[in-house]
């Protein structure tokens, strides 16, 4: 007769634990790290088709690479150009400063949650596959920093990063820069990260977005 009660107490206990841990994670996200200067941080960079990659490379150009290494570039499997552009950037870095200084770079492809124009219903199935693939990549990489700027491919990765935070597997800082093309409304990715408090910092480039989403960090146009 005791078993059902014990089982129930166990379930309630675990749920309470997880809830407390999630609250702790949400509270500690968005808080700067005030410890001594950390060593180089492994960084996951999510690339996307069209302007996304151009904007990300624009940001990477001014990021101190010795602090963010090794760098893992992830792009959708159907995106042929983005990884190529990232390779060009990395090659020029190695030419300038040598691989010791700027660290190694890795290039990976991920299954896409949703293609442009895909129906939302079939997107559920493809998103589940994408999540499984993202999980596998994240277990391999376990990045300390994640940089993304909009493509749907970043959502499964950020969701898993959040899960890793809750489970204490790895604390990843998530920095999301909403695309310069988003003037009045956040993209779906940006909206999800904003509403669920999943990004440590969410940057917007236009004042209209700052007014609509007060917790966002307004930084003006980056291009």
């Amino acid at each position: 007769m005791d078993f059902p009660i014990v089982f129930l107490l166990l379930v309630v206990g675990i749920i309470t634990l997880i809830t407390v841990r999630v609250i702790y994670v949400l509270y500690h996200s968005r808080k700067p790290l005030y410890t001594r200067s950390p060593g180089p941080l492994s960084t996951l960079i999510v690339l996307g088709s069209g302007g996304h990659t151009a904007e990300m490379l624009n940001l990477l150009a001014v990021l101190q690479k010795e602090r963010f290494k090794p760098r893992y570039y992830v792009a959708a499997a159907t995106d042929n150009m983005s990884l190529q552009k990232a390779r060009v950037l990395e090659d020029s870095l190695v030419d300038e400063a040598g691989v010791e200084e700027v660290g190694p770079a890795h290039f990976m492809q991920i299954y896409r949650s949703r293609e442009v124009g895909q129906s939302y219903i079939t997107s559920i199935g493809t998103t589940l596959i994408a999540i499984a693939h993202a999980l596998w990549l994240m277990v391999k990489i376990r990045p300390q920093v994640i940089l993304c700027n909009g493509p749907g491919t970043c959502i499964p990765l950020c969701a898993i990063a959040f899960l890793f935070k809750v489970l204490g597997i790895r604390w990843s800082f998530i920095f999301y820069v909403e695309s310069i093309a988003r003037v009045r409304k956040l993209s779906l990715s940006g909206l999800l990260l904003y509403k669920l408090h999943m990004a440590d910092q969410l940057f917007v480039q236009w004042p209209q977005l700052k007014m609509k989403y007060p917790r966002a960090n307004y930084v003006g146009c980056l291009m």
Partner: protein
Amino acid sequence: MSEVDHSMNSKRLVFVTVGTTCFDSLVRAVDTQEVKEALFRKGYTHLLIQMGRGSYIPTKSAREEGSVDVDYFTFSSSIAEYLKSASLVISHAGSGSIFETLQLKKPLIVVVNEDLMDNHQSELAEELAERKHLFCARPQTLYQTISEMDPESLTVYQPGDATPVAKFISRFLGFADD
């Protein structure tokens, strides 16, 4: 911005780009007699169309009396050289094309593709047009925009800077300021 030059020897190129998209309605609109004549009247001599994944094929034509020289291609690994040599750029509303052109300080007409389902691109084109950094048009209104435009009236776009964001991220993570 350069003045209209009617000398027979100088080439004034209009470069049309649709990026990696399919934007037949723009290519069609540019390939019409009225648009080509409007461009000629404004002093342009050559029209080069990067047509991307489109299925509508424009008509090539060597320089005839009273009209522009027309040529086209599908893709190029980098359109930077074409942008640099252009006197006017007509582009789809992709942010990459827009900012690459604005950074080169070229007069720009952005044409929004109304066939795209989720047209968030129009937000950017409209905002930049409001700030007078470019002209905004639809394929049907392209002729009007070209006829009425004054490229001199555009305000030069000052490029943005991502350095403050990079510094913020660094500081946030606990790195010392340089």
